């Protein structure tokens, strides 16, 4: 590894903070370019189902899948063109509208200093700090794994309605439908990771919320960074245990010194 090449900042764009840039340099990596992948996929209206959305739940999961995979492919292409080994700190933004699903990924391509990368770049939403910890522990990120599932909240059964008049009761069809959808979303996440040859997914984020235009439909989405061991085994990073001797009550508040931006 050469130190001279690190100084070359020629035409680099980066949305990393100065701390992240310095951290990256400490492991002899460098930022290359801001890279982008965005995709929109269609959800067709289903047959005669009144509201125009009921029953479109499978189609929505399918649309979500194709928006996400195309966005990932596009950001990968962008990274490969820039000569990056992978993208870190990817901001993941997806929106579900009545007839479309939109996925947008933006991050900074990085690589070992001065080494233009060939081959499939990785895509990860991990921060530089987490990327370095992962790297030092002997693991490598492979890509973003996604899973989604949409479920229409069922009405209570007539039996439940009567039971609920008399006592507390589990709404079994609700439990079943939503439990099933949660499991399905995670199963899709997991199989996406297996498809990449990963042994697991870290930093899984998870959201469950009703769709803004159809409150009777709940979308479950899960995503995270698929990882596998890069060498023979996990390396224990041996953190040093520190005890702060600062007295918290007399500590000067330096919050403002963090700067206004970046």
């Amino acid at each position, binding site marked *: 590894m050469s130190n001279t090449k690190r100084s070359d900042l020629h*035409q680099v764009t980066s949305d990393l903070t100065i701390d992240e840039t310095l*951290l990256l340099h400490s492991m002899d990596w460098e930022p290359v370019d801001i890279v982008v992948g965005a995709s929109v996929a*269609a959800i067709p209206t289903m047959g005669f189902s009144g509201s125009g959305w009921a029953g479109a739940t499978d189609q929505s999961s399918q649309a979500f899948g194709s928006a996400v995979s195309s966005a990932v492919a596009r950001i990968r292409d962008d990274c490969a063109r820039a000569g990056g080994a992978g993208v870190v700190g990817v901001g993941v933004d997806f929106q579900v509208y009545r007839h479309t699903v939109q996925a947008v990924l933006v991050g900074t391509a990085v690589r070992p200093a001065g080494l233009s990368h060939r081959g499939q770049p990785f895509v990860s939403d991990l921060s530089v700090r987490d990327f370095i910890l992962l790297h030092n522990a002997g693991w490598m990120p492979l890509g973003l794994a996604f899973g989604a599932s949409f479920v229409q909240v069922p009405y209570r059964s007539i039996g439940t309605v009567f039971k609920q008049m008399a006592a507390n009761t589990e709404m079994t069809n609700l439990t079943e439908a939503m439990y099933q959808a949660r499991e399905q979303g995670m199963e899709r996440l997991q199989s996406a990771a297996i498809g990449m040859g990963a042994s697991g997914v870290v930093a899984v984020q998870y959201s469950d919320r009703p769709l803004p235009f159809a409150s009777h439909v709940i979308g479950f989405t899960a995503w995270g960074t698929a990882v596998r061991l890069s060498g023979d085994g996990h390396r224990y990073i041996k953190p040093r245990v520190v005890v702060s001797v600062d007295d918290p009550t007399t500590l000067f508040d330096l919050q403002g010194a963090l700067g206004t931006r970046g």
Partner: protein
Amino acid sequence: MPSAFGSEASSQGVDIPEAAGRRLAAKSFSSGLSVADFAACLHMGMRPVGLVQGFCAMGWNPGYYLPSQTAYGNQWQGWGSSWSGWGNALDTYYCPHRIVQSAEHASRGFNVEATGIESAWAEGYNATYRRLLEEAAALGAHGIIGITDATKALIGPRVREFHLLGTAVVMDGQPPPERVWSTYLAGSKLGKLYEAGLAPVSVVGAFAAVTVLPVCVTEIQEQGRWDTYGVVSPYGEITQLSDAHTAARRLARDHVKATLDGAALHGADLEVSEDNLVGRTTISAILRGTKVRRVRDVDPLPPPVPTVRLS
């Protein structure tokens, strides 16, 4: 056509207001820095001399550029790749149904880079930036730190105001500057930048806008309809929209890169919005940050030591 700001070259003959002259000539300073940033800035040998700003209200008429859907469908109004001088066709999408172009059936679709709007933004930003530098130069400042910017619709959608505000600093004992440098950073972040061997050159940014003139298939998919001709699957990706969303963001990046002259863009921030200002979906992206260059070679930090804190 300029589509990025950060250059001093421009624009109309508006001078900085008279009040600015009086304010800047007074023997005191004001500063937008927090107390901690103020302290950090003194520590780095920078003495704040005044709060400086630039402002510009910019009006434009997207009507010239408005691509029309006539009785003959999406109209091609230009020659080559230029759209009446207001746009730049990025991609063309064709109807898979083999139907003749008409008002009912758009057999051609275009993603158009709205260069007209882009240059309005660039002009507004550049004029603002030039005025900011003028105020700083009037104070004999070396640089401007802790810049904040704002742009918003002023009165109606076709007038936009641009505002840049920052603290001008003098570095005592240094020779007078050839050019005033500027940065969004302040406080310890700016200090770390210097420690890393980098120095700010200027705030830079770019605006990019892509207008979508949908081809029949895009329209069908976007509205959740089924293709009555059975050619296009209602499922799956809407390529034209994906391309537009990707292109707007990449164009903003590429416009910024065109102003870098071999330097780097640090701490960038990307903002995207979608509107119907010109009667069609337009995706706008603003990318801005601080242009930095290397002033000395430094060794990288030693590998960081992971710690666990006991309290």
